[in-house]
Structure formats: C-alpha cells, structure tokens
C-alpha cells in the first residue's frame, strides 16, 4: 500500500527460467539416485556421508555460489536456494549450506588466510560458520562442526577462523554433525564493522538457504503423507477421503508452497535489491521452519502408528525440520522481535514522509 501511494508497482513473477529449472532438476535427479532414504539412515547418527560429499563436488554445489573471478560460477541466492531445497528434500547428510555460507563469507574477505581457506573449499573441503551464542564454557554448538576442516565465527568483535582437530560429534535430534567448537585459538580474519557486517550477511544467507532446505524437508514429508492417505484403507475407503485427513494435508501443502515462494522472494531481494530486503529473510526462515514442522507432523499423524515408528521415512524429515531450524538460530520469539522491530521502523519512516 505504501508503494502504491508513490505510484510504484512491482512484478510478482515466481517463474523459473530454463537454467534454473535445469539446476533444480540436476540436483533432484542426482540426489534421488545417490541419496535414497537407506543412505540417509546409514549416515546416522552423525549425519555425514563423505562419499556423497565427494560426488556433490562434481555438481559444484559450493563453488556455484562464489563469484566467477574467484573461481566460482557466480550464482545468486535464488539459484542456491533451488539446490538447497533438494538437499532438504533428500535429507542429504552433507554440509552443503554450511560450506556455501562459509565460502561466500571467505570470498568477501581480502586476507591471505581467507584466500587459502576459500581455495581449499573450492577444492572440496568442508567449512562452517559458528553463528550461535556460545554456551557457559565459551564453546559454541556448531552445525557441521564435527566434520569441518575450517570453522569461522565471532570472538568478541572479531571474525576468526580455526582449523580444528576433528571435534567430537554430539548426538542430537536431527542426527546432524554438531560439535562444540572453541574459537578462542582462532586467527582473526576480519574485525570491527567489517566483521559485524560479514556475520550479519552470513547469518542472513544461512537462514535463507536453510529456509529452502526446510521447504524441501517439509515437501518430502508431505509426499509420504499424501501417498499414505491414498493407499491406506480404513472403514472401506482410502483415508484421504476423510476431510479430517485431507484438510490438514491441504493446510500443510499451503504452508510449504507459500514458504517456498516467500523464500524465493527473500532470496531475490537479497540478490537484486538488498536495500529493500526489510525482514524478508527472518520471515522466510520463520515461516519455513513452522511450515516444515507442521508438514512433518501432519504426515506423521496421517500415517498413524506407523508414522511414529522409525521404520517410517517421515521421521527422517520431521526430526531434521526442527533440528535444522534450531541450528540456524530459529528461535521463534527472537525472529518475531526482529520482524516486529523492522515493521515498526518502516511504519515510522512512512509516517515521517507523509
């Protein structure tokens, strides 16, 4: 409404171009073949499949998002989100988001250590960013921390990098390769305003790509739920005939479809009009977190008792939906505060200009 007042109209075009469709289909086909549910289970509890990671390097999953003049393919966040949705759809035990965000952060730093680290990542190395608040002993619970050759994160006001000796994995809800990471020995690679800005950007990109992955997780869970509703017979009919089964599946689908589009829109603004981004990344992340969890729960419940067994693939997606959201800083209340503050600030600006 505010833009209308100023005679501004925006497109609302969610279509993918041919290259984007090809990118999505390439990742989808590859992961469908290479990362079936047995493979996901085999990589549990630590969520790490080195062979899959090596194969993914062939798709340039990490170099894709690095500028061309730094050895990458120059892809933006929209393209990366398409790839990450497929990572989620197949619950791939590979630190793609972590390494993409770390690599993009390193690519923004002019420092010999960062350059060497980036070269290593483009070569198939694993890295991550420690974005969570440190625990009481000063260590930070870090996604992909147990498998990363390089961890970057905040120490006081600085951005530091450590090359840890294989950290001990800690078992968790999402069967993710989490580890407690000590950044105190890290080497400073950026400081002051630059460091703060790099961390903000890293957090935003982590959330955007995680939102895409969450959409994939939710969509996969839903596919199982919908199929079960068609196949399972109760009272003489497929249970999907009952609105009490069908309507929650519809609601979960609406959640996932809208989360996908909100994530794309947020990625598009981050790529093309970062000054008009507002709280879109926080919105996309929060909505995708809630939609993926709801999709998982709905699918699980649709399968009834079977859905609650570990034999059902739905639990693979359900546990990761909550876990990946938490690991990316998905604290609902904090996200809402950020969204609300951005909203109030934009309303103040609008009042000041009228």
């Amino acid at each position, binding site marked *: *409404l505010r833009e209308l007042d100023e005679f501004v109209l925006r*497109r609302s075009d969610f279509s993918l*171009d041919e290259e984007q469709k090809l990118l999505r289909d390439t990742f989808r086909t590859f992961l469908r073949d290479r990362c079936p549910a047995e493979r996901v289970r085999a990589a549990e509890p630590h969520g790490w499949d080195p062979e899959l990671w090596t194969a993914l390097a062939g798709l340039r999953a990490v170099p894709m998002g690095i500028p061309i003049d730094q050895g990458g393919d120059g892809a933006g966040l929209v393209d990366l989100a398409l790839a990450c949705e497929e990572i989620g759809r197949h619950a791939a035990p590979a630190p793609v988001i972590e390494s993409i965000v770390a690599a993009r952060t390193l690519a923004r730093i002019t420092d010999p250590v960062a350059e060497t680290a980036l070269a290593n990542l483009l070569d198939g190395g694993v890295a991550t960013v420690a974005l969570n608040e440190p625990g009481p002993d000063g260590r930070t619970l870090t996604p992909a921390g147990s498998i990363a050759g390089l961890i970057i994160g905040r120490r006081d006001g600085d951005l530091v990098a450590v090359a840890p000796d294989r950290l001990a994995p800690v078992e968790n809800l999402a069967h993710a390769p989490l580890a407690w990471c000590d950044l105190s020995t890290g080497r400073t690679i950026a400081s002051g305003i630059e460091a703060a800005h790099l961390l903000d950007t890293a957090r935003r990109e982590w959330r955007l790509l995680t939102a895409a992955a969450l959409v994939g997780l939710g969509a996969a869970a839903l596919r199982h739920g919908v199929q079960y509703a068609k196949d399972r017979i109760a009272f003489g009919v497929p249970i999907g005939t009952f609105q009490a089964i069908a309507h929650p599946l519809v609601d979960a689908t609406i959640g996932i*479809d809208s989360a996908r589009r909100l994530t794309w*829109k947020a990625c598009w603004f981050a790529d*093309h009009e970062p000054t008009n981004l507002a709280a879109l990344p926080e919105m996309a992340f929060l909505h995708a977190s809630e939609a993926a969890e709801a999709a998982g729960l709905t699918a699980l419940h649709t399968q009834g008792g079977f859905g609650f067994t570990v034999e059902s693939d739905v639990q693979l997606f359900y546990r990761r939906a909550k876990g990946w959201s938490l690991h990316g800083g998905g604290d609902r209340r904090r996200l809402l505060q950020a969204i609300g503050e951005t909203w109030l600030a934009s309303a103040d600006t609008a009042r000041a200009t009228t």
Partner: protein
Amino acid sequence: MNFGTIELDDDTLAFWKECRAFFTEHVTEEVHDEERRTGGGFNLDLHLAMGERGWVAPRWPTEHGGAGLDALRAQIIDLERVRSEAPSILATTTLLPPIAIRKFGSPQLQQEILPGVADGTVRICLGYTEPDCGSDLAAVRTRAVRDGDEWVITGQKMFTTGAQFSQYCFCLTRTNPDVAKHKGLTVFLVPLGLPKIEITPIETLGGERTNFVHFDDARIPDHYRLGEVDDGWAVVSAPLAQEHQMKDGDADRPASIDHYNVATRRALDAVTNWLASQQRSDGTTAQDDPGAIEALARIALGVEVCDVTPGAMRRIVSAETLVRAASDLLDIVGPAGSLAHGATGSIADSAAEYAFRFAPGTTIYGGSTEVQRNLIAEHLLGLPRSTPRG
C-alpha cells in the same frame, strides 16, 4: 523470477494519476459515512461515473461499451478503487454473469443487457445460494416451471448481495426434480422489476447488507433463459470458475489484489500508527512492549505470506489471517478498541473492531474455506473426493 518495479511509461503514469484523482473526487467522506450507515456496498453516482469512462468493464472493447484497456491499466483502476475504499460489492459480481450471457444468451439478450452493464445502468446480482443450500450449490430448490412462452418461478434466494441495486438476478433454478441434481438445473437472467418478486434485507455481523429474494409464482419470459433447459450447471460453471480464481496472475503484472489481505493490512496499519502515538506515564510507548511487537510481527508475517500464496490457496490464507489478526489487534489496543467508529473515545479508526466483525464472513462467502480445501485436496493433491457425487 522478478519482483522488480514495473517501468511505467508517461502515458500509463498519467493514467494512474487520473485514476487517483477520479476516486479522490468521487469517494468522499460522505460516501464512506453512507457505507458505514447502510452497508450497501454500492454507490450509484460512483458506479455511473465509472460507467461513463468505460471503467465498469475496463477490459471490454470500446464497441461493447468498455474502455478497451490492457490488463495493467485495468489493474490500476482496481488498485485505486481498493485504495480509495470505494463501496464496490457489485463491481465484481456484475461482470461475472456477462461471461455466461456472451456464451449462452441470444444476440437480442446480449444487446439488451451488455451495453447497460458497461455504462453502469445495469447491475446484476448472483442468485445462487438459498436458505437450504450454499456450498452444495447443485441442490438448489427454487423451481422454474414452463408455461407456454413463460416460466413460473417459485422459491427463495438468500445472500443475494446488491439485489436492491440490481436490475437483474443471475438465477439458478431447478427445472427437473427427477434427474441427478446437476442435470435438472436451468439459469435465468431474471428482471427484478417484474411482479411477484420481493427483496428483503438481511443484516450481517460485518455491517454489510445482503438480501433474500422471494419469487412467488413470478412469470419470466423464456427470452431470459440462458443456455438449454436443464443445462444450467454448464452456465453457472463459466463464471464460477472465475469467482474461485483457480488461475495464477501473469508474469508481467503485479499480483492481483486480495481484498481480505488489504483489510488485514489496513487494520494493522491503523493499530501500528495508533501505538506509535501512545505515550505511557513512565515515558515508554506501547512499541517498547515485546508482547505487542511479537503480535504485530505475526500479523505482518501473515500479510506477507498471503501476498506470495498462489491463487487457489490464497483465498483460505487471506480469510483466516484476517480472522486471527483482527482478534490479536483488539488485544493489543485493549478495551477502547471495542468502541464503534465515531463513538466517544474510539481509537485507531475502530479498524480492528470493524475487521473483527467483517472477518468471519470472509471464510464463508464466495465458496467456504472447506469447499476450497476439498478442491485443493482433490485437484492438487490427487486425494479421493470427499463429498458424495449426485
């Protein structure tokens, strides 16, 4: 994928400014006051002024009385109409029956009706729902019995919004009670000025007035029949498909405007601005209250989610977001939020109070959210049909 601004040439921009000036001129405070008082959803002067410019049917070719505008300009009219909060309940319903009239009406009937629709002198309300049938539309009972060159119509239509301002009712009737329910229906364009047709008001919680239309052996010339006898389902399906908006917007245009989401946004804006003006005795404002910020954030998120939700699903999301938002906004403003517009001490334009009363209807009319969920379950998810075929 593209969410960038649409470059508007000078002509289009001038057209847009002309639209804004037009609605500013015609949608006055008196028009709003009248609407709050009567809830009619219609203003004759505005409608005729739009008709004079071809803006009632902006996309129809000029030889049919329209303005022959492209999709973008037609959308600009729509945006400005919504922005001005013009009462316009008939703006959309009037344009639905002509889809069927063009397809099924005789050349004489088309000539009789369509130019008047375009210039604003003819308005058409929708005679679908009855006291005993809404979502199950094919169950209508209003009877039409042939008598020579005429039909005798007996029964009642309900929620016939805008009937008091309409010349015709696009009326679904039962002509054969002995066959499957979809197969015994016939559509008439009933002239509401004929004898033995009575319109009586129904007041709604949202303040909108709607109607009963009673047919007490009303006699209608066969000339007003649309389509073949007993083939009425095909006739109503054409405009119904449009009313359900199963299609998505096209790429080079802004997303179509969603009225319910606009209502949410208006109430959110009103409360946000009111909050900013409130200073407490300790010097803080309500903006410093984390609970209020969270609640506002939820609603702002809901508005954004609704904006990106694809067509068939958006109808559900926008209605249910409005329902939740209205209640939450009332909680934020507190007891004075419940005061009616213009009442002593009323605050925030009473926008949340209005939204709260208006909201429940949005989950029902134009096809209830349950019916919409059935459609999505069946057509998008491929689940078995839940409602019996008959």
